[in-house]
């Protein structure tokens, strides 16, 4: 940030006649010299015998509003001690600025008090209230969304399929490169780390099983969901939030469209259709990453590696992984859109909604994944 300094361009002469203090001010008085001037003037007012202060402004060449304010503040300081302040030879320019300043308004207290920091208990109570209200908001939106989805299933012609395809392209096609790269590297890392241990026991072939199992059952679905949450939940929240700020959502309502059916349902359908496919890709690339380590570092042939992987992956694992992907996709679209519709006020609320969309959807994805881990384990046993 640039700084401007202004040299004090004023001169102050002080004289005294009985109980009257005469301050003769000349030159330039402006913002930069206001503090110095006030301190200097105050210093001359210590004498309790003074009852009248006369300020002579004959020599003033320039005085800005900050300069005039300094004189008014001096007046206030003086009036607290019962002094009267008079002005002599006020230049017309300065007189106009003085007239522009309403002294009564200056001492008006703020309509909002300064925010007082509450105690710990207050803060905890507020936080609890906020979380509860947030939870209710999310759940109420879930109800609206399910009702809109039901309507879409009953009346498929009402769905804006063009927007569904657009959401699929943005989330799926455009997300594929980053999903592929991350999955490949994750597969590679798991294979490399586990091979260091398993090699010692000559159990090289089990690297393939370990990677395939970890990727298909857990890491594929959850890594993809987290990436999509980062890319798409944020995009949905920002898009809808921006529309809220610009009254576009209100415009939809006045034209007779239900904003949830119009905006959220296509995103939901698009995400739910595309995330399982992305998850399959992630599984494939993860196994490929493991194979790179297996073939180059563990003397396995591609055939044996893939065969070992195939043997460990059951149809049950694959289907449960796709079911997870559908649920995660639902969470991403649900939270992304809800955070967007929640935006009130200005643009800064859009930024907050975007962040919150990513954080909340990742949180819910992990919670859902924990539930899946337990439920799938018992389903597998039966």
């Amino acid at each position, binding site marked *: 940030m640039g700084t401007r300094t202004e040299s004090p361009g004023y001169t102050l002469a002080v004289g005294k006649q009985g109980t009257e203090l005469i301050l003769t001010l000349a030159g330039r008085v402006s913002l930069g010299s206001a503090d110095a001037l006030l301190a200097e003037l105050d210093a001359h007012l210590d004498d309790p015998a003074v009852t009248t202060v006369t300020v002579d402004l004959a020599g003033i060449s320039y005085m800005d*509003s900050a300069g005039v304010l300094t004189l008014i503040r001096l007046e206030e300081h003086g009036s607290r001690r019962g002094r009267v302040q008079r002005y002599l030879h006020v230049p017309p320019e300065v007189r*106009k600025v003085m007239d*522009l300043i309403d002294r009564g308004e*200056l001492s008006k207290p703020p309509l909002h008090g300064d925010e007082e920091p509450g105690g710990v208990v207050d803060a905890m109570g507020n936080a609890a209230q906020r979380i509860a209200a947030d939870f209710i908001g999310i759940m109420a939106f879930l109800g609206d969304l399910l009702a809109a989805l039901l309507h879409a299933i009953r009346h498929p012609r009402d769905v804006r399929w063009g927007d569904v395809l657009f959401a699929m392209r943005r989330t799926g096609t455009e997300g594929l490169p980053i999903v592929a790269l991350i999955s490949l590297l994750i597969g590679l890392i798991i294979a490399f780390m586990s091979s260091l241990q398993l090699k010692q026991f000559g159990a090289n072939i089990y690297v393939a099983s370990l990677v395939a199992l970890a990727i298909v059952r857990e890491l594929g679905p959850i890594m993809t969901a987290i990436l999509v949450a980062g890319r798409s939940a944020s995009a949905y929240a920002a898009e809808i939030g921006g529309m809220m700020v610009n009254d576009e959502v209100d415009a939809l309502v006045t034209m007779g469209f239900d904003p949830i059916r119009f905006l959220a349902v296509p995103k939901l359908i698009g995400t739910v259709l595309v995330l399982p496919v992305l998850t399959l890709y992630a599984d494939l690339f993860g196994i490929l990453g493991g194979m790179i380590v297996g073939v180059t570092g563990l003397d396995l042939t591609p055939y044996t590696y893939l065969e070992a992987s195939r043997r460990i992956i059951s149809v049950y694992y694959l289907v449960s992984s796709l079911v997870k992907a559908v649920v995660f996709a639902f969470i991403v679209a649900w939270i992304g859109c809800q955070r967007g519709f929640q935006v009130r006020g200005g643009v800064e609320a859009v930024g907050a909604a975007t962040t919150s969309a990513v954080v909340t959807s990742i949180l819910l994805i992990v919670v859902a994944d924990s539930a899946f881990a337990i439920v799938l384990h018992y389903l597998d046993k039966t």
Partner: protein
Amino acid sequence: MNPGGSAVNGTGEAVVAVEGLTARFGDTTVLEEISLEVHRGEILCIIGGSGCGKSTLLKHMIGLLRPAAGRVLIGGTDIVAADDEQLNRIRGKIGVLFQSDALFGSMTLGENVALPLSAVDGISPETAGAIVRMKLAMVNLAGYENHYPAELSGGMRKRGGLARAMVLDPKILFFDEPSAGLDPVNAAEQEVLIRAINAGLGTTMVIVSHHVELVLGIAHRIIMLDGREKGIIAMGTPEELRRSAKDPRLRRFLFKEDARRMG
């Protein structure tokens, strides 16, 4: 200084001068070879229909856009050729009120107004607070320093933006559509406020607007731009323009002649 109030045209000394300014966006020429002067202490209004380039002209005058050709002089310094340091010095002497108030939503009104003060050395927090209260009182917003912009009405936000624009006592104030989005009562209040600040602080003002009532009420001089001519088609005091307006485009603008005929 002008003791007579609103009917003066300043001292005749040019504080802003635009010389042969040409503005282009890509291949589209918006303004061609425009020259004008703004005199000390006057209120100059730039009018014209939508898309005539009046906001573009304003953005060139405050250095946000670089002209394809020509010069813009503020206080005798060419801001097109100025280096960063010179430009910063000039920017300290001008204030701009944007069409959307451009108040920062994450700061209170008081913090918004105090922001330009933080760039000046040696101002104590007490003094900064007193200056903020004074400027807010000048725009009839005394007591609102702890409000956030979202808690204020459109008219109040506009006035808050004005308080921020004039916190450093700028020599020149630029306004982009100061009455846009305001109801007639608020627009009239804005008009009174602009006139009071011009008369009280002697601030030179350049106002871009298509609000005819406001312009005729406050302008010392009016310049009309036209999109097809890409330049100035009329210039003069409100009285001169009203009396001798021959150009049909100007008559349509000032007297809404077409609209009446249609009605």
